[in-house]
């Protein structure tokens, strides 16, 4: 895999990506994270929470996919009112991005999948 800082750097520059993180798949801890774009001064930093819960959710998605005999999930997108959370598994890490609703999700997906593929 490219250096995790490179992965985070390139993903965070994709238009619409608010934050990009490389997270331990098993422990949900942040390995590398970009700053949150547009985070107001004094606003709480939610990256640690997002990383842990996204990795946890992704682990459940893997189990659900396996139970349904669908194979390994390739890409997970959680759509909320104010943003999307995208997750891609890459061996023993997961790539997590927080993306604005008007972002080019196709581009985000492609870049995340490419970064994950480089890790296989």
């Amino acid at each position, binding site marked *: 895999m490219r250096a995790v800082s490179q992965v985070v750097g390139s993903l965070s520059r994709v238009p619409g990506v608010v934050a990009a993180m490389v997270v331990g798949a098993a*422990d949900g*801890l942040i390995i590398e994270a970009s700053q949150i774009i547009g985070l107001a001064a004094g606003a709480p930093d939610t990256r640690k929470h997002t990383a*842990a*819960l996204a*990795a946890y959710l992704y*682990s459940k998605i893997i189990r659900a996919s396996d139970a349904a005999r669908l194979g390994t999930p390739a890409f997970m997108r959680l759509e909320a009112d104010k943003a999307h959370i995208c997750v891609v598994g890459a061996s023993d890490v997961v790539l997590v991005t927080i993306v604005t609703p008007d972002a080019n999700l196709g581009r985000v997906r492609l870049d995340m999948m490419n970064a994950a593929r480089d890790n296989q």
Partner: protein
Amino acid sequence: MTNPTVAEAWVAAPLKRLMEDARLISGVLLYPSGRAVGQFGFSNAADVMSICALTSAINASARELGRQLDGKPFYEMHHAGAERQVFMARASAAAQEFLFVGVFDRESSLGVVEIYFGEFQKALEKLLPEKQAPAVGPSGDFEGELNRSLDALFGPIGKR
């Protein structure tokens, strides 16, 4: 999952929430002196007694190790076993300090446990009774304190 049993009623709700949210298998909240405040996942007082004694000793050692290596006590410890993992951390509410030790498996993760432990700590700060029993420092009667707290959790010996 069974509900926590507690020696002090005010910790029951936050302890239950921590247990459920972090998907912990078992856990014990105690004072640094080794006196148990609440527990879940255990049916045997002897197990809780051992955990309290060990956690209290580990905390004392880790605190001193942290002081020597980092100039301040370590805040939390994590041990990842093959199947199960142990999370141990200090929580403080006002001037009162507590220790928590919890066990989890692949149904949870360290990141998730850390998040919900942070919320648990905030809940303790919010709920800590103003008139807290003052006998929280080591009284010198470790065994007596431990036995009294175990009686509160599991009932007096002979009735357990």
